């Protein structure tokens, strides 16, 4: 059996060095991955000369390596790996929907985003190409019995949130099963990023910035790393540091907002109102760099577009310290209120083994006791030089997800403060040339939700032949469904908020 190609985060490598395995070996390498402490970071398909090729990226967190491999499908189906390796279940569904190849034996093969297959005349469910698939129209898992009732929530919700459909199978107040159906916000970003000729799409940066609005910096950093690696552009230490600061500010703002929202969901007003304001303070710090609270147009391939001078850095440190002090005070109220702790503890538990086998990433994984943090395990950019301790808690409940957030707030604040004090020199933005032809690059970034994975494959002219995006939500929505098992249906909003996953980042 040929070995997978080992590489590191954000490196460009020639496509032909990636081994093309037999389907059997390819399956084996994926099925055996969890046993070898590897997890599936990306599994997708693309078309080469009318044949569908599968491509896998396995990540080994312990030694910071990525393993790449591919295989060519000779027919319109392949034996599913989900039963042996549950974490590929959604990847396989996506491949089936996008390319009309059937993972035979998949236990729950359903569309993901309700789009037409990209290969004309091939559809995994044999649907006609004339009728556009209706989002959310499909069979749901159902439990039968006298006392079972079904509750359907969404896609339109009472709050101002994104659309998604949740189907509960309940016995009284107890949830037996939750099925989540998304796809309402599919915009076709991955396809829009593809180009025929050597030039990259001019709109690409804007697409990536709005891929998931609350993770602008995370996704844009991942995209920039891809483009820079492919064009061998050297980014200055100053630009890397500014990116790191922006990324951690994004984490601070979102974690603060989430802690406030968690307090609001249990009806605990003090923290809810404090954190609502403080989230704005962090967003305004980002705005003071580039004029946009979410960091739009702050980053670009080659570096950053806005600098932080000495006086602004000093001013930011003062504002950061004030905001962090207030957040820690507001969050201490949570830990010191027995009524809040009674709601958080033991609610929505995800065990370490479930988290590992589903391949959860980021905050949700760390709250289930899995030490997994791209900044630490597979660092790129500034994180190759500066370490942020990995924040882990073992209990896997809502409390753990809240507590890990508060730990990360303190640690990110230290990082931002230190780097604002000592910004290294260097040009802000180095010119980026053309992307190398026939190359592959995998870029991983630890966004505030977790691992953001971008994979690009270039064609002979250096244009993107395939561009895949995996938001952490892609991995973690199944974690939420598992957290609700045997839980009270009235605790769903709290569990949902504790994961706080992205709908548009999933729908792309």
């Amino acid at each position, binding site marked *: 059996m040929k070995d997978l190609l080992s590489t590191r985060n954000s490196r460009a490598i020639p496509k032909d060095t990636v081994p093309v395995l037999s389907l059997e070996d390819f399956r084996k390498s994926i099925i055996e991955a969890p046993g070898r402490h590897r997890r599936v970071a990306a599994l997708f398909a693309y078309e080469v000369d009318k044949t569908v090729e599968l491509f896998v990226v396995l990540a080994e967190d312990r030694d910071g390596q990525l393993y790449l491999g591919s295989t060519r499908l000779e027919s319109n189906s392949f034996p599913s790996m989900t039963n042996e390796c549950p974490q590929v279940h959604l990847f396989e569904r996506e491949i089936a929907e996008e390319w009309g190849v059937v993972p035979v034996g998949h236990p729950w093969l359903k569309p993901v985003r309700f789009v037409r297959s990209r290969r004309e005349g091939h559809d995994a469910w044999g649907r006609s190409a004339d009728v556009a698939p209706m989002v959310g129209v499909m069979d749901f898992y159902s439990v039968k019995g006298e006392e079972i*009732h079904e509750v359907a929530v969404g896609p339109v919700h009472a709050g101002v949130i994104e659309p998604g459909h949740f189907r509960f199978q309940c016995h*009284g107040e107890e949830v037996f099963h939750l099925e989540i159906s998304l796809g309402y916000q599919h915009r076709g970003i991955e396809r829009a990023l593809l180009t025929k000729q050597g030039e990259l799409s001019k709109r690409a940066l804007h697409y990536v910035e709005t891929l998931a609005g609350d993770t602008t910096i995370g996704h844009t950093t991942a995209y920039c790393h891809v483009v820079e690696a492919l064009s061998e552009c050297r980014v200055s230490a100053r630009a890397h540091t500014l990116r790191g600061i922006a990324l951690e500010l994004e984490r601070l703002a979102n974690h603060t907002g989430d802690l406030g929202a968690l307090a609001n969901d249990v*009806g605990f*007003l*003090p923290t809810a109102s404090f954190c609502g304001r403080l989230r704005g303070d962090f967003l305004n710090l980002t705005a003071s760099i580039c004029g946009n609270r979410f960091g739009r147009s702050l980053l670009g391939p080659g570096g950053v577009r806005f600098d932080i001078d000495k006086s602004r850095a000093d001013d930011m440190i003062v504002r950061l310290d004030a905001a962090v002090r207030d957040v820690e005070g507001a969050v201490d109220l949570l830990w010191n209120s027995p009524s809040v702790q009674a*709601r958080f503890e033991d609610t929505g538990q995800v065990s370490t083994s479930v988290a590992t086998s589903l391949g959860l990433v980021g905050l949700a994984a760390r709250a289930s006791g899995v030490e997994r943090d791209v900044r630490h395990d597979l660092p790129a950019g500034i994180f190759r030089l500066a370490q942020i301790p990995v924040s882990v808690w073992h209990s896997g409940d809502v409390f753990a997800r809240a507590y890990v957030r508060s730990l990360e707030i303190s640690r990110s604040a230290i990082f931002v403060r230190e780097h604002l004090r000592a910004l290294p020199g260097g040009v802000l933005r180095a010119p980026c040339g053309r992307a190398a032809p026939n190359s592959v690059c995998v870029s991983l970034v630890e966004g505030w939700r977790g691992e953001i994975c971008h994979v690009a494959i270039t064609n002979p002219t250096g244009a993107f032949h395939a561009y895949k995006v995996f938001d952490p939500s892609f991995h973690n929505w199944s974690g939420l469904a598992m957290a609700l098992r045997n839980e009270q249906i009235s605790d769903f*909003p709290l569990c949902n908020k504790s994961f706080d996953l992205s709908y548009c980042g999933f729908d792309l």
Partner: protein
Amino acid sequence: MSILQSLVHVLLACTMPPLLLGVIGKTKAAFAGRVGAPLLQPYYDIAKLMRKGSVVSRTTTWVFRAGPVVGVATGLLAVALVPLGGEQALFSFPGDLVLFAYLFGLGRFFTVLAALDTGSAFEGMGGAREATFSCFAEPALFLGLLVLVKRSASTSLSTMLGAHWHGEAASLVLVVVSLFIVLLAETCRIPFDDPNTHLELTMIHEVMVLDHSGPALGIIHYSASLKLFVLGALVVRIAAPRTGNVWGDWGVLVGGMLGLALLVGAVESMMARLRLRQVPSLLVAACLLSAFGIVLIAR
């Protein structure tokens, strides 16, 4: 009771209830460091809803429309049974405490029926919760009233609440705390229910009235505040001292009600909601408090 006092009773019962919601809202805003909505906002809201049209689902029947009407009618009847400032309620007879308790029961019955009438999974869930929790709230209310019955040797609310307390402070405190818990549960405040939440899966009362709109919703809001007013009057009458002066007693009642609203607002600002499955435990605790109150007084 003089005609003047009866008029004041009616006037106060009809106009004051939404003010209590306004005070609760202001208190919560103050705790959160916000200015908050105006004190009179609940009146504006009800007035706004009264002017609106309403949408009624075709699957519903007359029961759906009857829900809010029965709700407000039972509330208005109940308020006539409770003495507010004066010695007497508007009308009273031996055993009116049973009517008092089951007027709420009737109102709840129709609210739940109206919710089930829509056929929505959410409202069915809310109805189930309401019915379950009222099974625990009712005994707590009755046990609390039983202490008063024992003390005053009467089964009419007017006599029960008119009696003076001497040297039974422990029992008094237990009953007041127990009835305050019942009040929070019956009026769907934190820690039982969150009146501000938009999350239909967690609601108890709000989810049952999701389908009502316009004037019907306005009436529901008004009846909710009326319920708070009636139960609040019960608690205040037990807890507050009698001045001996007729109009002084009315002043004590109004002041006591505003104080009670402040207290409810403070509880809501400092506590998180209970997990739904722990709601019965707290109500059982309220039952036990009242039961101890009886033990202390019957020894």
